[in-house]
Each structure stands twice: as structure tokens, then as C-alpha cells.
């Protein structure tokens, strides 16, 4: 609308729908309303305890003012491969709840993204909530993002969770969808750091943009997850 790319007859403000709001921390998962803002993710004390990776990533999105309004739901539902949260949600193995005229259904974040701006959500559905499993106590985590400056999308970013016999790695802005590699997680869980990085790299398909040519992105796509893995490992407790 603002960019003169769409002319719409109606504008619906979703902010007043209570069901789309709220951060609820359960025993083994967290339920997040689609209209929860990045700022709320950061400010919520309990969430920072339960899923610290979420807070670490949210702090690296845009700037303070944008985080006050930018919603988690908007970030993941848009299907923009530049966005940070889709990869993060795949790393965390989140489930999206979408609601249509008749029913609601659950879609795994790892199954949601089809190509840039195309997702498993139907036109008559809206994303309403996100369910994020709480990682086991002592799980190491890191969100590493290379960017040119605050406010920029990632040149390359990696989300890592690693615990006893378990690991998950996802990457951002390195293909037309977020990149989550099952093989990379398996390798890292087995303690094979280089194998994990190689597996993740096998899954990317970066495009040239103002952040650099493909070969640059391929290279930093190897560096960034290594750093994320090292930082996550350093945080493993117990």
C-alpha cells in the first residue's frame, strides 16, 4: 500500500484480537500469539529463561523502533527468506497454527516454506499462534548473524541448538527458503562439527545481492555456523 504495490479495499487491524496476543509458557512448550512483537519477545523475562535463543535472535532484528511494532507472526508468515525468524523457528522445531474460515490446523515450521513468499498457508487462512518446544535444561544455543549494520538483513545467519545427543542447525538468507538440515543436526549431535557445517552448506543456494556475490556468501555461510556452533557448545551446561 505504502509502496504503491497494492491497492486494497479494506484494512483490518489484527492487534485488537486477544487470541493473537500473549506469551504463555507451558511445561514443555511455549505458545506465542502471532501478533507478539519482537520487543515483547525480548522483554518477557520468563521467555528469556525458557527459550533464550529467541531473545538472542530478536535482539538482532532491525532496530528498537521496528521491534516495537514488528510481529513474530508477520516475520514468519511472510515467507521472506531474508527474515530471521523462519530459520530460527525451524531450528527450534516450532509448530504454526493457522486458522481458516472453518477450521484450524497445525503446520510444522520445517514444512511451511515452499519458496520465496510462498508458504503452506492457504489464502483464506491466517497464522494465529506459534508453539515452540522448550529445549531441555542445559541446551547450548546461539544465533550468529553477519550483517552490514543494524537494520540490515543477514549476509548469512545461523541458529544452533546443541545438547546431549541432540542438535539442530538452521540458516537464514542463504536460499529462497530458510535452510534447516537434518543431516547437519545429526552430525553435530554426534560431535562432528565439520560434518555438520558441510551438511548445512550442501543445503544452501545463495543469490548475489548488494551484500556480495555468491562465492562470498558460500564462504561466510561456512564461517557463521562454525561460530554459532562454538558459542552454543560453550553454553552447554550440566
Amino acid at each position, binding site marked *: 500500500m505504502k509502496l504503491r504495490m497494492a491497492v486494497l479495499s479494506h484494512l483490518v487491524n489484527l492487534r485488537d484480537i486477544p487470541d493473537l496476543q500473549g506469551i504463555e509458557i507451558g511445561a514443555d512448550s511455549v505458545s506465542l500469539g502471532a501478533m507478539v512483537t519482537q520487543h515483547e519477545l525480548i522483554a518477557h523475562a520468563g521467555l528469556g529463561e525458557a527459550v533464550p535463543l529467541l531473545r538472542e535472535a530478536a535482539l538482532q532484528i532491525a*532496530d528498537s523502533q521496528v521491534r516495537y511494532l514488528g510481529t513474530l507472526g508477520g516475520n514468519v508468515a511472510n515467507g521472506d527468506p531474508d527474515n530471521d525468524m523462519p530459520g530460527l523457528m525451524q531450528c527450534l522445531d516450532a509448530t504454526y497454527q493457522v486458522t481458516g474460515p472453518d477450521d484450524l490446523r497445525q503446520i510444522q515450521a520445517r514444512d511451511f516454506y515452499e519458496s520465496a513468499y510462498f508458504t503452506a498457508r492457504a489464502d483464506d487462512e491466517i497464522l494465529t499462534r506459534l508453539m515452540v518446544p522448550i529445549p531441555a535444561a542445559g541446551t547450548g544455543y546461539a544465533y550468529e548473524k*553477519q550483517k*552490514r*549494520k*543494524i*537494520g*540490515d*538483513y543477514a*549476509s548469512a545467519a545461523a541458529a544452533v541448538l546443541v545438547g546431549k545427543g541432540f542438535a539442530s542447525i538452521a540458516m537464514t538468507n542463504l536460499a529462497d527458503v530458510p535452510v534447516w538440515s537434518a543431516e547437519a543436526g545429526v552430525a553435530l549431535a554426534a560431535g562432528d562439527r565439520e560434518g555438520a557445517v558441510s551438511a548445512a552448506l550442501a543445503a544452501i543456494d545463495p543469490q548475489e545481492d*548488494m*551484500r*556480495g*556475490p555468491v562465492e*562470498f556468501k558460500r*564462504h*561466510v555461510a561456512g*564461517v*557463521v555456523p562454525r561460530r554459532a556452533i562454538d558459542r552454543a557448545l560453550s553454553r552447554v551446561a550440566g
Partner: protein
Amino acid sequence: MDNPMSTAFARDYWMQGKIAATKDGQITGLWCHTTADHGGFDACADPTKFPAGFMNICTGSHDIPTAHLSVDGVNTNKALGGVAYRCSFRVTQAAYFIECMIEVLAIKLNMDATELRRINFIRKDQFPYQSALGWKCDSGDYHTAWDKALAAVGYDDLRKEQAQRLEDFRAGKTRKLMGIGLTHFTEIVGAGPVKNCDILGLGMFDSCEIRIHPTGSAIARLGTISQGQGHATTFAQIIASEIGLPADDITLEEGDTDTAPYGLGTYGSRSTPVAGAATAMAARKIRAKAQMIAAYLLKVHDGDVEWDVDRFVVKGDESRFKTAKEIAFASYNQAIPGLEPGLEAVSYYDPPNMTYPFGADICVMEIDVDTGEHEVRQFYALDGCGTRINPMIIEGQVHGGATEGYAIAMGQEIAYDDMGNHKTATLMDFFLPTTWGTPTYQADHTVTPSPHHPIGDKGAGESPNVGSVPCFSKAVHDAFRPFGLTQSHMPDDHWRVWKIARDLGLHR
């Protein structure tokens, strides 16, 4: 974003150079050829007498006996080009060119570049200095500035730390290199003398008109217009010192062409060197009349009173004086034989020469070889703008100009595709630094007044841009120098720095 997309916003120069020197480092000659991209059509405020702009300062701070300069202007399918904000006459390129030439020469001669500069700097006693390109540099004390700068950052210790870092890098203990950028720049601003400079035939003098009110307050109108440089503050300070009335009682008015005296405006650090000079000259006309009024009131000859801060005092008798405020009242309200009532003056100032500010910048940068990311650890900026009117404002200009330099050197680019489409049309892709990552600057100064400017001022706005752009770039070059790098192409954003490291075989 309309500005970079559709107006003259940036310079686009391709510079080639050759430099000649004796084996012991004495520079004997310089050759420079520039290809200047002017976009779809030329929008430069080109002085018609010097269509290349002021590339004429490309010999920099050095005593170079012979120099040759040539320029080709090229039109392309880009937006109109050639002009940039802050440093509109392309002195930054000149500084970039000569500073890179010096560094390369130091490599070829296997000399320390700081020492190579010392050998070749124009000495203090050589000023006014006639340059090989035909310009007369007004004043400078480069050796003092250089030594002060190197001492301030602890240059020798920095080099030791850098050597240790290099050893650690080679031993695989770190993936970060350390680079030290050094520049000593000489500026040419204060455009300018009508005999040399014009904009399409318009002479580049400037103007000031001052009216003292009977109350002792005053209004000054100038031919320039402030864009944030603080004219209303600093020009009042010039008048305060010249006439002895408090700056707080002096109102400045600019930008209304119905009331302002004719002038050429604000750009290229010319406001203080030209309009500021006009302000001082107009004030001095007023003070000359004030002296006659004071002498009359004190019943002595004109020559028997002398100026003392804010008053004329009878020579030899401090108790007999008339303050500027008293004189202002008397000028209107007391009949003085032979003098018109009132106290006002106007000056149209055609400067006898350009002014030549100078300075030294030193940058310490950490560079991540694997990602091309950098961190500016330290940036020292010594500014020699002559007499300092408002130190706070000058330092603010240094911070701002150096930050622009940081942007230009480290990421800013107006990129086009082959069809002439603009690829950097948002403030995300067109790199503007944010609070996060922008260096903190140590501003320092030396004072070498201009001998021909009424208050010795040289102008401060452009200098930090002129010196900092090569300084940031050279910090990058310096980090990779042990591996054979001599030059790179700006901007040194992440992928270009990464590419330097890759091309030098530094990636595993």
C-alpha cells in the same frame, strides 16, 4: 533517497598515478590522470577557469617540484554526477590519490611511510609555498602536526602490537589482522578569489552587512546560509570579538534573498574563509568609525585611543574609556561633527587567496579475515583549520565529516546494473552508519593561522572528510600489506575485504 538516485550526489573518479623519487626518498615528480564519470550530464559547480575542480591539490602536503595533471570527463547512463556534499570540489580524491601514492612509494623504497612523509613535507619556512600545479599554499606546520599525531596514538607501540598480531595470525592463534591507517592531508578551500574562481561566470566573493542598534545589540546579514554548521553562533562570535558587543546580543540572518547581501552561499568550507572574512572586515569598518566616535567623546585625537576587548581606552589612562555599547548609543544620538549618525557597514570580500587547512588522521582497525568484517578501534583526527572560532563546533564537524569518510571508505556505494538501474535505493543498501559501529573520535588540533585571512581562519567542514576517507582505506591496505597488498578499490565493505583476503590466499 531521491538525492542519490536523481541528483548530483557523489564523485566517481578513476585515478592513475606515477611518482618519481630518489633512492633516499626525496620525491622528484608526480603524474596523475583522472577519468571522471559525470553521469548523464555535467552538474558540477565547476569553476569555469578550472574545469577539473581542485584536483590541483593532488600534490598534497609534499614539496614536489614537478607535477602533471590531466583529466577526461566521461558521460554515462547514470544520474548526473561529479559533485558531492561535503567536499564539493573533489579534494578528497586528491588526498586519496596522493596518500596512496606515498604509501606505495614507501613500499617500493622499503621505507617507513611516516619517515618518507617527514622527508617530503613542505617545511614551515617554505610558506607561502608555490606548488608545482600553480597554487600558493598560505601556511602550514606539517612536521609539528605529524609528530603530535604519532605521539598521541603511541605509534611505535601500535606497530609493535601489529607485528605481534601478525605473528599470532601466522601461527594460527587469531583470524584477525590489525591495520593502521595514516594520512596527512592538505586541503584547498575558501573559494575563492574572483581572479581564480567562478561558478559559470559568477565570482566567488561573499558578503556581510552589520547594523549596530543604538541599544548595543546588532544584526548581521550574510550571503551564505547555514545547513547546520552553526553560522548564527560562530559569526556572532567573530563580531563579538571584533566589535566588543556580546555574541548573545547579535542576531544573524541568512537565506532571505530579499534582505541578504549578494553572496555565493555555503559549500566547500567557504563560509568562514569568505563570508567569515567579510564579517570581520565589515566589523572592522564599524570599529574604525567607533574609534572616531570614542575619540570625540573622550575629547582626544583619533590616534590617542586604543582598542581593549570591548572599549576604546585613552592611551596611558585606563580610567578614561568608552565601551562599544556607549559608542553605539552615541553614534545615533549625539551630533558628532563630520560624522553621519549610525553605525553600520557592509563588506563584499574577494579573498586574495584560497586557504589551506591541513591535518593528520590515524586509524586503528581490526579486520576479520574470514568474513571481511571490521571494527575501528581508534580514530585520531588532528585538524589544523587556523584560528578556532568555536572549538565545540569544529570538533562536531570533525566527528561528522569523519563519519561520512567512514561511510564512503567502508561501504557506501551508488551501484548500478548494466542497464543503468539504481541498485542501492534504500537506506539499507546505501550504507549510512548507525550509532552501532561508528567510531568514537579523538579530535585534536594545531593552530596555524592563515596569513591572508582577517582572523586567520581556514575553514573546517570539509577537512575531516578529506583526510578520513584515505585513512580508513589505508588501514585496510595496511592490514594486508605483509601479504603483498598495495591497493584496493573502495568501498571496503565486507565482501570486498573478504575478496582481498581470498585473493591473497588467506582463507583455509
